[in-house]
């Protein structure tokens, strides 16, 4: 039912946690809604225009957790512009998400974009 990659991220999620809210080098994106069954919080730590670290916390199904875990891995080392170009279909493909779970990857893409925008707005 779940791909091995989803199971790996679910069982050993990467970069769970939070950065200090007040830190100016951090951008935070929160997307989704409790009523819809998934909420993702994604944070990026930026130094010299490059993402040096990332954290997430997710309320959602296994695929949502895996999508956000993967997103934190992928954004590391990228510039903000590069990170904002990560698409949901890349995430869905990497995790072999079934059609019914595509919205989880959409949420991860939205979370990255929201975090990038938040960072930019704070500078």
């Amino acid at each position: 039912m779940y791909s091995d990659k989803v199971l790996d991220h679910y069982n050993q999620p990467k970069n769970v946690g939070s950065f200090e809210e007040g830190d100016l080098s951090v951008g935070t994106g929160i997307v989704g809604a409790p009523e819809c069954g998934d909420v993702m919080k994604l944070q990026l730590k930026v130094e010299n225009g490059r993402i040096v670290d990332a954290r997430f916390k997710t309320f959602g199904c296994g695929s949502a957790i895996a999508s956000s875990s993967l997103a934190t891995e992928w954004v590391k080392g990228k510039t903000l512009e590069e990170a904002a170009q990560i698409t949901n279909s890349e995430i869905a493909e990497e995790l072999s998400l079934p059609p019914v779970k595509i919205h989880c990857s959409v949420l991860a893409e939205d979370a990255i974009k929201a975090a990038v925008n938040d960072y930019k707005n704070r500078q």
Partner: protein
Amino acid sequence: MNPTHPKPIYLDYSATTPVDPRVLEKMLPYFGEVFGNAASRNHQFGWAAEQGVEEGREQIAQLIGAQGKEIIITSGATESDNLAILGVAEMYGKKGNHIITCVTEHKAVLDPAHYLESKGFEVTFLPVDPQGMIDLKALEAAITDQTILISLMAANNEIGTLHPLKEIGQLAKAKGVLFHCDATQAAGKIKLNVEEMGIDLMSLSAHKMYGPKGVGALYVRRRQPRVRLAPILHGGGHERGMRSGTLNVPGIVGFGEACRLARLELEEEAVKMIALRERLYQGLAAKLDYLYLNGHPTQRLPGNLNLSFAFVEGESLMMGLEFIAVSSGSACTSASLEPSYVLRALGIGDDLAHCSIRFSLGRFTTEEEIDRTIEQVVATVTRLREMSPLYDMAKAGIDLKSIQWAGH
């Protein structure tokens, strides 16, 4: 199953039950030497099959205080519900075109009711309170001179809430309206008596009570009043013309034995189920905060425990309970991507519906399994809450309802 994995724990008895070994033993000869068609009236092969069927029918009837002749064999509760509702609608349609049911009924009741709406019937879907109970006054007020049928379940399949059948039956009787009761989940778990409860039609399923899949029954009252039904399946005129089709002889024999065992063991088993259920509930409540019970605290099926683990999505929790079989009202576990309509009807909020898990205990559940379940659920909920942004917010005293979420 992989021998290196722990023995899986089955806590989904409301979905289906294993066939009791005593039931299986009783069925086996009917796959072999007693293979006749119960409708073959002219030779011993038929007679032997018929005898098995009639004994089974009698046991089914005894479980609910009915007569054998009042039991119509079907393929399962979905068929029984359809036959009761569509059969009454067609037979009594000239008398009236109004049916009353309730929003938390099983789809096997709701969908035929919606179908009848499309054919010109009026259907009242009664609301329920936050514990899943209907309001008897609202039921009484909904009855009109056009009402021909009230269809209300004995016990809800998701939240286990028990409807006040006796009061409903009295009301139906006083108003001259037929009362159909879907007792799929309740039969064999709580005492049911069609006479004392004033029930005119009752749906039953074998596989929810340690019998085989593919066989069910519809109780159809024969006197005071004599209920008539238009058939859905037409053919050889079996089952008093109400349900044609060659009888599932081994299935009926097994169903009968399952009913006999349930009748004898029901009371003792209910005590054991309630004790195990409370052990599970108290064990979880002692270690987890933000835990919500769905359904009624006391008027509920002995083996049903439906809980919402706030801030943890149901499917992700089930993923963590790798060797425990439960079910969830979360959208992610449904084909429709909508959270459970039963939980929604309680008005608990979609956020908590997504966090719900139904534990349904049964005959073969042990204390040791309950203790292992508590351990695993606590560990998984704790782990998932550590990665839940909502749990952080709740702990920080933020009212989640005050936030403008970007719904999708």
